[in-house]
């Protein structure tokens, strides 16, 4: 089989590749299937409506974490054990406050300066697992995790989120205040507290 390219075909190919190089107009199929969906920037400032949104969640979590990192009990450097109690939603909206505390916890853990104990929500699965290992007789003795070895937290995080909503015929103003405290569990002393305020105004 003769594989040599005919001169005219070669010229055409050269011209095509030149066009592709100079014009950059060749479209390469993207690894995408489907229609009118676009992936956006998950960190972009979201201003679709003035209800509680992703930017509020992210900025609250970030500013609380950064402030907490500077608190005296954490800068001592002995990696205290913290647990997350409730953040009460006192606004008129539905807000998943657990999502905010989850972000705070993830960022705090990533910074490496604290440890977290299993909180109320996850306690059931923790005790279930311990009881199953110890009481069902199905596990090797040498690998069974002992009951009575869980560590008690030194501090707990708890807080509130409140809002003030004002509305006129043309303007809607929402003010959020997120407050968080770190309480010493043995002493009951509030060791750290901070607030994050957010104002959002929209006109119709």
């Amino acid at each position, binding site marked *: 089989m003769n594989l040599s390219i005919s001169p005219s075909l070669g010229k055409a190919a*050269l011209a095509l*590749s*030149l066009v592709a190089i100079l014009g950059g107009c060749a479209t390469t199929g993207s690894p995408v299937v489907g229609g009118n969906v*676009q992936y*956006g*920037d998950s*960190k*972009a*400032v979201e201003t679709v409506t003035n209800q509680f949104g*992703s*930017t509020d969640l*992210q*900025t609250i979590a*970030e500013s609380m*974490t*950064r*402030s907490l*990192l*500077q608190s005296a009990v954490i*800068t001592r450097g002995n990696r205290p054990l913290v647990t997350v109690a409730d953040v009460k939603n006192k606004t008129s909206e539905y807000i998943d406050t657990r999502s905010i505390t989850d972000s705070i916890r993830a*960022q705090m853990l*990533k*910074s*490496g*300066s604290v440890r977290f104990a299993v909180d109320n929500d996850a306690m059931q699965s923790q005790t279930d697992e311990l009881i199953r290992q110890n009481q069902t007789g199905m596990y090797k003795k040498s690998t069974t995790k002992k009951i009575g070895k869980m560590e008690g937290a030194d501090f707990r995080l708890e807080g509130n989120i409140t809002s003030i909503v004002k509305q006129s015929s043309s303007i809607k103003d929402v003010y959020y205040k997120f407050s968080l405290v770190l309480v010493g569990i043995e002493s009951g002393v509030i060791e750290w507290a901070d607030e994050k305020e957010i104002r959002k105004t929209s006109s119709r």
Partner: protein
Amino acid sequence: MTLRKHLAGLLAVASLLAASAVIAPAMADTIASKIEAQGEMTFLKITGLRQAVRNGLLSIQAEVTNEYEGQQTMYYRFRWLDASGFSVWDDEPWKPVLFHGKDKQLIQVVAPTPQATDFRLVVQSPENKTSPASTW
């Protein structure tokens, strides 16, 4: 063949340029070296920048001045880098700041982790001379 030669030449020039960019002497710690402005800000100016290490964490304070009589918005976020220039933290959320007319504001932040020894302040203002491509 000539095209290939041209391409090879271009590649050589490009790699030379890249190499010189790498070898270039380290930039002095000027304000400009720490700021990544997405387009030149027309009315908002970064007029001060200081850093200190407190409790093992890098603290930054940036002073931003609005030179305009009316309100201006700025979006910003920090990039946290280690000594080798690697990013040590996830992308931060963009944060909006509102400036009143002729307002001056201090942006204070603390690094999220002791690993962060360097930073870049990424700023964008909607009324930039050249707006960047939309992030949406």
